[in-house]
């Protein structure tokens, strides 16, 4: 067995693609080696990627494929000589090498030839070539005169097997193929000399050789170096790194450096009056620096730049000064907009929204503001503590910041900036918070809005969007959802469930459609939202059959009730009565199904109590005493649980198929009544297992 190292050296791979590239490379090499029979039971593989190096290191690879025996059946032993001679020629073996063997069809000649497995070294060139040709980069390019596509120009293909370079080359569709080598390179500026990979005998040795040339090739090693460096500097100034937040963009930082060094910078005082979200967007998102928190958890004026150079005091100063200047220019721009925008009241921006199209066929954003004003106010009565006038005002102002200079420059701060400007204008806090939070939740990880007014506006925005796009036929299809309508529907669901809101959704969809001037709301909107609820509940680990049982009523629009009932039914089916009832239900429904098939009609849930015995009376009493839906789903389920005993006694003590046809029909009627009563609560036909 031997180790295999494949390393590709090229120009800078985009940071966001490096993790995928390392994983895919390792998986593809493993699959290919496995397919060739050289991936042994002890084999391991690691994928590594930095800006200029992409590699796999595998151990436990067989040096050759196992030998194989190829068996060929020839003609029958009593076949004409010509046929036998032909077979002998086709095998390439001497006649004596053939064996005779009995088979169920008679006695036949067999030829067995041993085929020696190929050496792994003879196979690797093609393995690598195939993987390179089919590598799934999100975007790829050609360069020079070649026709081969790669993420950026590729300069070297290094293959080392059992410590030795592999001979061969790869066709780039250029005048010259690229010869395989075993020479890597170090950090562009820190260690420009070549590094030999000959004799590398472990993953650690490979990493060590590159590290000695100031390249940390393993992404997780780079992350650790960055986080450790940042934490140490933060500690010096009494601050901490918010690792959760850093986790959202450390990939961007770690993908840009081979030799990370943390440097401390400081935001000038005059910029600290800008909103922390704005500072965060400028410093972290745009400049890819690490922001810090002070001891009270507030946004600290200190930040950390990760440079791609070894530490050198004089150079570090130059690098930091350059970065500080870039940041100053960016923040000065932001400050300019911050001051400029505030000269105009937020409500005075609303008429300017007229110039911005919401979407072709759905009017402009001023019209959207007016619709949000109406719909937010229509939602207010269903949200505890929500003032209708506040909701209307917040809805009207929600989109105004889209025409401010600041949001033009920092689109990711939409809403948040509007919130600040509203507060500056003296709008009540409830309105400012609602504007700031109304885009939420922006993804599965994002929180829902918590204040009553914010819930109203956030719901109104999403409902308006759903109704509008469905209204002009721009519905999501397959994986295509260009207007993020699934996210909007999920937002509606999460806000309603999280806020425990009972919202008459159909009615509000109708209102939204009226606001657009549509004749009616599109028929697919409610089913679409219900379908997203189904997906959401399944993501919450709810059994799909239980979800289906509760959502069986196609017209249901009370999302909160449906979610609650799913949870109740799941809980009910976990306890003894629930399980027992399901067993009983199954006996009832299977017997009815069999009998109805024979009778070719369904049995009515009608009974004649005169024909009952005691057991049947008891069951009938239990059935007629069941509470209706006014009692609530939980009470209904509990009462169904109480049916378990009378149903069990019925099946234990009674033969349904009585000799007397009237008694038999009466008993089937009683079973039909069980079915009817249970189906009123949930669709038990959907329950599996």
């Amino acid at each position: 067995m031997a180790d295999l190292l494949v390393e590709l050296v090229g120009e800078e791979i985009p940071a966001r693609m490096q993790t995928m590239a390392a994983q895919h490379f390792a998986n593809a090499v493993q699959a290919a080696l496995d397919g060739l029979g050289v991936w042994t039971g002890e084999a391991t593989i690691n994928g590594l990627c930095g800006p200029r190096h992409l590699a796999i290191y595998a151990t436990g690879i067989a040096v050759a494929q196992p030998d194989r025996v190829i068996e060929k059946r020839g003609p029958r032993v009593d076949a004409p000589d010509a046929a036998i001679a032909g077979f002998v020629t086709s095998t390439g073996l001497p006649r004596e090498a053939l064996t005779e063997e009995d088979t169920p069809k008679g006695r036949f000649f067999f030829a067995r030839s041993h085929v020696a497995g190929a050496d792994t070294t003879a196979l690797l060139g093609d393995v690598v070539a195939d993987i390179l040709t089919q590598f799934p980069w999100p975007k790829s390019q050609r360069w020079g005169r070649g026709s081969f596509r790669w993420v950026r120009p590729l300069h070297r293909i290094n293959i080392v097997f059992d410590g030795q370079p592999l001979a061969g080359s790869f066709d780039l569709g250029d005048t010259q193929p690229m010869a395989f080598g075993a020479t890597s390179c170090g950090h562009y500026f820190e260690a420009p000399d070549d590094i030999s990979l000959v004799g590398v005998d472990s993953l650690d040795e490979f990493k060590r050789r590159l590290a000695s040339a100031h390249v940390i090739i393993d992404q997780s090693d780079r992350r650790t170096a960055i986080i450790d460096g940042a934490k140490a500097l933060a500690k010096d100034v009494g601050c901490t790194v918010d690792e959760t937040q850093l986790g959202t963009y450390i990939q961007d930082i770690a993908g840009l450096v081979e030799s990370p060094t943390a440097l401390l910078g400081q935001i000038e005082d005059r910029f600290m009056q800008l909103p922390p979200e704005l500072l965060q967007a400028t410093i972290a998102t745009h400049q890819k620096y690490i922001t810090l928190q002070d001891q009270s958890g507030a946004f600290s004026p200190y930040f950390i730049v990760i440079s791609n150079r070894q530490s050198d005091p004089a150079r570090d100063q130059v690098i930091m000064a350059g970065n500080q200047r870039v940041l100053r220019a960016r923040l000065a721009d932001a400050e300019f907009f911050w001051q400029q925008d505030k000269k105009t009241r937020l409500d005075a921006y609303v008429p300017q929204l007229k110039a911005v199209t919401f979407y072709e066929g759905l009017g402009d954003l001023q019209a959207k503001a007016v619709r949000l004003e109406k719909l937010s106010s229509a939602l207010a009565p269903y949200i505890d503590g929500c003032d209708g006038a506040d909701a209307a005002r917040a809805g009207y102002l929600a989109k105004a910041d889209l025409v401010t200079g600041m949001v033009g420059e920092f689109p990711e701060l939409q809403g948040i900036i509007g919130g600040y400007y509203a507060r500056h204008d003296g709008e009540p806090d409830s309105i400012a918070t609602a504007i700031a939070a109304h885009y939420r939740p922006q993804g599965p990880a994002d929180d829902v809005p918590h204040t009553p007014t914010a819930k109203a506006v956030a719901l109104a925005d999403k409902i308006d969007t759903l109704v509008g796009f469905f209204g002009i036929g721009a519905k999501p299809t397959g994986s295509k959802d260009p207007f993020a309508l699934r996210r909007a529907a999920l937002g509606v669901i999460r806000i309603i469930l999280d806020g425990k809101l009972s919202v008459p959704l159909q009615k509000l969809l109708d209102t939204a459609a009226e606001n657009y001037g549509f004749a009616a709301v599109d028929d697919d909107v409610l089913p679409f939202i219900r379908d997203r609820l189904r997906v959401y509940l399944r993501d919450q680990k709810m059994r799909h059959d239980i979800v289906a049982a509760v959502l069986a009523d196609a017209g249901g629009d009370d999302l909160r009730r449906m979610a609650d009932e799913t949870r109740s039914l799941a809980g009910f089916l976990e306890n003894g009565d629930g399980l027992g009832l399901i067993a009983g239900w199954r006996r009832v429904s299977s017997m009815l199904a069999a009998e109805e098939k024979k009778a070719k009609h369904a049995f009515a849930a009608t009974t004649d109590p005169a024909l009952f015995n005691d057991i049947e009376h008891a069951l009938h009493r239990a059935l007629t005493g069941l509470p209706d839906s006014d009692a609530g789903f939980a009470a209904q389920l509990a009462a169904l649980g109480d049916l378990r005993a009378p149903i069990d006694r019925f099946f234990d003590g009674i033969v349904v198929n009585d000799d007397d046809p009237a008694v038999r029909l009466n008993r089937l009627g009683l079973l039909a009544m069980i079915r009817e009563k249970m189906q009123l609560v949930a669709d038990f036909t959907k329950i599996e297992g």
Partner: protein
Amino acid sequence: MIRTDFQSIILNLQSYWAQQGAVILQPYDMEVGAGTFHPATTLRALGPDDVWRAAYVQPSRRPADGRYGDNPNRLQHYYQFQVIFKPSPAESQALYLGSLKAIGLDPDAHDIRFVEDDWESPTLGAWGLGWEVWCDGMEVSQFTYFQQVGGIECHPVPLELTYGLERLAMFIQGVDNVYDLDWDGVPASDGGKIYGDIFKRAEIEFSGWNFEHADTDMLLQHFRDAEAECGRLLGLNKALALPAYDQCMKASHFFNMLDARGVISVTERAAYIGRVRALARGCCEAWIGADKVVSHG
């Protein structure tokens, strides 16, 4: 000591790229939004030369970026230094880093990064992959391997480098306001000029024209005229690709002017861009078609 005044940066870039075998051209004599529009880039990226190396300064106009001379970083008229090397050399990055050294930015004394930035010009129907190059966190150049121009695949693939000269000079001179840039390295006491001496008034006046005074009906008519003339030249029995492309550049600039005047709505915007792209595409097709006639004749 390498001189770092604005004009020396240009001279040094020119002489560096001349040494690398580039044809040093002069700016194209029309209003364009970026150096890429120069036919030496757009058209030569496609043909006819198998090898094409050129470098030039291109004054670029972005009417909507004007700030009446008030903003220290934004201008409606600025300079790009543009390099095009076809086919892209294997040592493209090293060549580029050499150019930084030639203008006094020793890469070894800084932190240089190549940060993903895919380039696309919807009006030219062009795209490429590459990076923006950062020096100590500052974007100093755009580095692109062209893949398509005018909707046509580039073969061989050209390398395009674009240096935003004002930004680069501000970085090298350590100046925070573009108007303070030293233009000629001559002391003010001796009549030396800074950027503001030369361009501030132009920024103020052109911002006024771009945003307030330009006659939009006239601009619309100019756009339509340029579009019609371009179409007519392309429709000739033997299409005149270069004059047609001039009209395409004009149309693109009039569109930018109309955009700055705020008379183009969001939905119309896409349609205008589509119209310019159609012209650019037609010019590129005519250009390579004309090549065939010339090279076979």
